[in-house]
C-alpha cells in the first residue's frame, strides 16, 4: 500500500497467482473488457509469442474520491509456468492482497497444490504471513465436465481463512465477485493498519 498525502491517493496492489493456464490473465481480460473505460487503464501483457504470460499482466482501476482519498488498484498476474519462479517473486513484491486462481479440473489438482506451496514460500521470503495476508481462493473453470469438488480444492489449498469463490472466467462468472472480495479484504486490512 502506498498513500501519497499530497495527491491524496491510496494505491493498492493485488496479484493474481496460480498454476499455468488456470485463468489468471482471463480474469484481467474480462475485468478490462467490462469495466467503464473511465475507471480503467490499458491492459498490458508481457507475454510470449504463444500468448503465455512471460512476466506479468497489468491493469489499473481508479475510482473517484472516497472520503477525501482517491483509491487506485493495480492488478497484476504472475506467469504460472513452474520455471518462472523468480518472476513470480518479483511481481509479488509489495502486494497488498492475492487472488489464487485454482484450476478445478481433476488432472490439475496437483498443479494447484504446487502453485500454492510456491506462493506460500515466496510470501515468506518477502516477509508476508500467508495466514494473515488478504487472500482469496477462486476455483475457476467450473463449467468443465468432471471438475473436482470445491471442498477438495479448498482443503488442498490449505489456507482455510481465505474466502472461496467459484468462477468461469471465460464467461465472466465470479470474476467481479472475486475482485470485490479481495478489494474488501485489502481495504479492511489497510484500515486495521491505518
Amino acid at each position, binding site marked *: *500500500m*502506498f*498513500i*501519497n*498525502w*499530497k*495527491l491524496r491517493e491510496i*494505491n493498492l*496492489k493485488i496479484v493474481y497467482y496460480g498454476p499455468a493456464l488456470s485463468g489468471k490473465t482471463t480474469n484481467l481480460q474480462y475485468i478490462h473488457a*467490462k*469495466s*467503464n473505460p473511465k*475507471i480503467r*487503464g*490499458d491492459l*498490458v501483457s*508481457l507475454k510470449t509469442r504463444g500468448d503465455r504470460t512471460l*512476466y*506479468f499482466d*497489468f491493469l*489499473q*482501476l481508479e*475510482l*473517484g474520491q*472516497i*472520503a*477525501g*482519498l482517491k*483509491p*487506485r488498484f*493495480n492488478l*497484476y498476474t504472475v506467469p504460472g509456468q513452474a520455471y518462472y519462479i*523468480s*518472476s513470480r517473486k*518479483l*511481481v509479488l*513484491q*509489495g*502486494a*497488498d492482497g492475492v487472488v489464487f486462481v485454482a484450476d478445478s479440473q481433476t488432472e490439475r489438482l496437483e498443479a494447484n497444490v504446487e502453485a500454492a506451496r510456491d506462493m506460500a514460500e515466496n510470501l515468506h521470503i518477502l516477509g508476508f504471513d500467508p495466514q494473515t495476508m488478504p487472500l482469496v481462493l477462486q476455483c475457476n473453470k467450473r463449467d468443465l465436465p468432471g471438475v473436482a469438488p470445491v471442498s477438495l480444492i479448498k482443503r488442498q489449498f490449505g489456507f482455510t481463512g481465505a474466502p472461496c469463490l467459484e468462477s468461469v472466467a471465460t464467461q*465472466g462468472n465470479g*470474476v*467481479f*465477485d472475486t*475482485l*470485490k472480495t479481495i*478489494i*474488501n479484504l485489502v*481495504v*479492511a486490512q*489497510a*484500515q486495521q*493498519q*491505518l
Partner: protein
Amino acid sequence: MSLSLPEELAEQIEHILAELYYETEAECILLADISGQLISTQGQMTGIDPVLIAALAAGNVAAMSELTRQIGEESHLGSFLHEGDNKGIYLFNIGGSFVLIVIFQINTLLGLVRLLGGRAAGQLHALSAQFEEHMNQPHSIPNADFGAALADELDQAFGELF
C-alpha cells in the same frame, strides 16, 4: 511493505525531480517504488500513462537486478538505458527499493542525463532512509467509514456485473 508519503517528504522529492527535469530538459521524470507504485512525476505526461510506466519500469529494474545478481553483482545502484529512434529511457535503481525513470527526446544530451540522473538518484537514495521510517508505521485516514464508502463506490462502478 506499506508506505505513506507525508507532504513535506513529497515536496523534497518533487524538488529533486524538478531540478533534474529542468537541467536535463528531459520530457518527463518519474519516481516509483520497486513494487511498481508511482510516487511522483515531473514534466509532460501527454500520451503516456505514468502509472503503467512505473509498473513496467519497476518490473524491468527488478528483473535486471536479479539478472545482475545471477552474475555475481550485488549492487543496488545500477542504471539501465534504452535508446530508441525518437525517445530514450534511463532507469536508475535506487538502493533496490525505488526506481528513477527519465524519459527524454533522443536529441537530449545523454551524458547529462546519465550524470545528473545519477546525482538525483544519489539524493533520493539519501532520502530513502526517511522513506523507510514511514514504512509499516500506523497511518491516519480522515474517515473511518472509508471501507463502507469504497464498497458503495465499487457497487456503483461494477454493480451490474456482480
